[in-house]
């Protein structure tokens, strides 16, 4: 991306005064997710969430989804923390906050489709990380959830150009980032990076946002970026893409991201990709159901 375009994006993103309707708990939550896991902060999370009944209710609905594997839905945020662990509840809360961050009328991309892809990618990242030793599953989930943040910026700040890009991607059945590049001259990777910097997201998450379509440009968090890149591809091939047919052949094992991940995690070699794909299909329906209830057209925001 040329420097002037980069500066222009930063300036436009800076001018977004506040994210419309973003729940107050969001920023402190992000800060907490960035801090060390040893710190005791259960009460702090419960206190924060208690300010926003909608977020608390949504958190419990998400935590009760079969995707999280609890036999019974938790009755309180504290109960969810006890059953699922603090970090998982924090990432669930983050999911709910993001779900309310943008008003429907601003979307050039169907929000339902966007959330299915983002939540789907988050789940796949975590599922993938379970197959590999020494990968932080919740970090992987968060990276998957936020990787396409730039689409939100595009909807808000570059809505006309982005609408043209989505229209072209749909019509030509090409990846959305290719259409963005052709029409806008930059992609959601750059706009997402600008927002990530404004929100002071952790460096590794920022790099996921800026490099998930070009893993080779990643410097500080290449394995995490590679994990998200592969999960993103898999989602787009298994009904969790952007709602249109992408004329695309994906050879995950030949993808450079696979080699990056393999260098770090030799247990990747033993992953049965076909079975992993079939298992992912099982989660697709749950993800669709969850998105419809939590981020659906009539959210229970009171």
């Amino acid at each position: 991306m040329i420097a002037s375009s980069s500066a222009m994006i930063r300036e436009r993103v800076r001018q977004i005064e506040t994210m419309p309707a973003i729940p107050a708990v969001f920023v402190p939550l992000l800060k907490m997710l960035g801090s060390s896991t040893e710190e005791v902060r259960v009460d702090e999370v419960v206190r924060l969430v208690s300010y926003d009944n909608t977020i608390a209710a949504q958190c419990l609905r998400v935590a009760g989804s079969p995707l999280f594997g609890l036999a019974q839905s938790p009755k309180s945020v504290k109960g969810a923390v006890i059953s699922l662990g603090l970090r998982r509840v924090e990432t669930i809360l983050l999911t709910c906050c993001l779900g309310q961050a943008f008003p429907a009328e601003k979307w050039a991309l169907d929000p339902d489709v966007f959330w299915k892809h983002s939540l789907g990618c988050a789940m796949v990242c975590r599922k993938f990380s379970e197959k590999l030793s020494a990968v932080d599953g919740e970090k992987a989930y968060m990276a998957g959830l936020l990787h396409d943040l730039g689409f939100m910026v595009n909807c808000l700040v570059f809505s006309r150009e982005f609408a043209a890009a989505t229209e072209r991607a749909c019509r030509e059945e090409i990846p959305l980032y290719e259409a963005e590049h052709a029409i806008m001259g930059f992609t959601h990777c750059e706009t997402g990076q600008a927002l990530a910097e404004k929100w002071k997201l952790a460096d590794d998450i920022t790099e996921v946002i800026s490099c998930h379509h070009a893993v080779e440009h990643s410097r500080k968090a290449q394995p995490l970026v590679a994990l998200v890149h592969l999960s993103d591809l898999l989602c787009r091939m298994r009904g969790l893409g952007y709602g249109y047919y992408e004329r695309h052949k994906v050879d995950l094992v030949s993808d450079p991201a696979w080699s990056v991940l393999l260098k770090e995690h030799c247990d990747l070699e033993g992953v049965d990709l076909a079975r992993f794909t079939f298992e992912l299909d099982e989660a697709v329906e749950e993800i669709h159901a969850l998105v419809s209830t939590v981020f659906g057209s009539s959210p229970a925001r009171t």
Partner: protein
Amino acid sequence: MTIAPQPAVAAPAPIKGSEAVDPVYRQIRDLVYKVSGIYKAEEKLYLLADGCGRRMKQVGARTPREYWNHLTVQSGRDGELRHLLNEITIGETSLFRSQPQLDALRKVILPEIVADKARQITKRLRIWSAGCSTGEESYTLAMNMLEESDRLLQGWTVEIVATDLNDHSVETAKAGIYGDYALRSTADYFRRKYFSTVDQKKLQVLPEVKKMITFSRLNLQDDSRMLGMKGMDLIFCCNVLIYFDGASKSKVIHQFFSSLNCGGYFFLGTSESLMNVNEHFHLVHFPGTIAYWKPSVNGGKL
């Protein structure tokens, strides 16, 4: 514009009481996957349970646990497993059974093969339907190729070789007469264009479709005949490999690999996989479907 939230693949079937499924069926599902590469997803477990139920009556097992013993510890367990595999794959044959496979074929693979062969003087595409049963898959492929005959495949000769071990199936296939059940996924457009009416309940494939296909009896374990099956661009082999055990399965897959041209594709049934039986094939993803690819001469770089 707004991208419509249409699914890239067919919407998954509703869950039918998967929570009530006896956990033993998950063990059986894993066993079936281990020996056949066929994966019954969580929402399809009830189908597996139905198949097991029919077999349980036959062998006199009173509980799923008892039936598990029939499959794993009692004498004749291999035979019983074969019966079960037959039971769960029965009735899967119909025309236009897998739309994602056909989409991948027409939207991604054919353009790739046509481009690859652009410099060849003879424009010829060879497809093998291995284990063609009563011909549904072969005719589906033929009709889809005919649809491309004045577009992508203009000036091309398409040959479809369809083989099956069973003489009776081959004869039925040659007749090309199908009832409602086999035609349940066939759109009116194709019914009108490529079929004639036999009676109120049956349609017959038109001669122009039939003439693209050569039906014959072939035993996939007949090495000398298999050696003659060369120069294929695409091989479809749906729910056939279940009939082979470990060593003979590897041999057959190796034969398929040899039969394919470089850059050719090998398709299995929708929930079927090779697992890691042949490491020379690359597992590749297309929207909603997977296939095995014999890398091009350039070493498999995409």
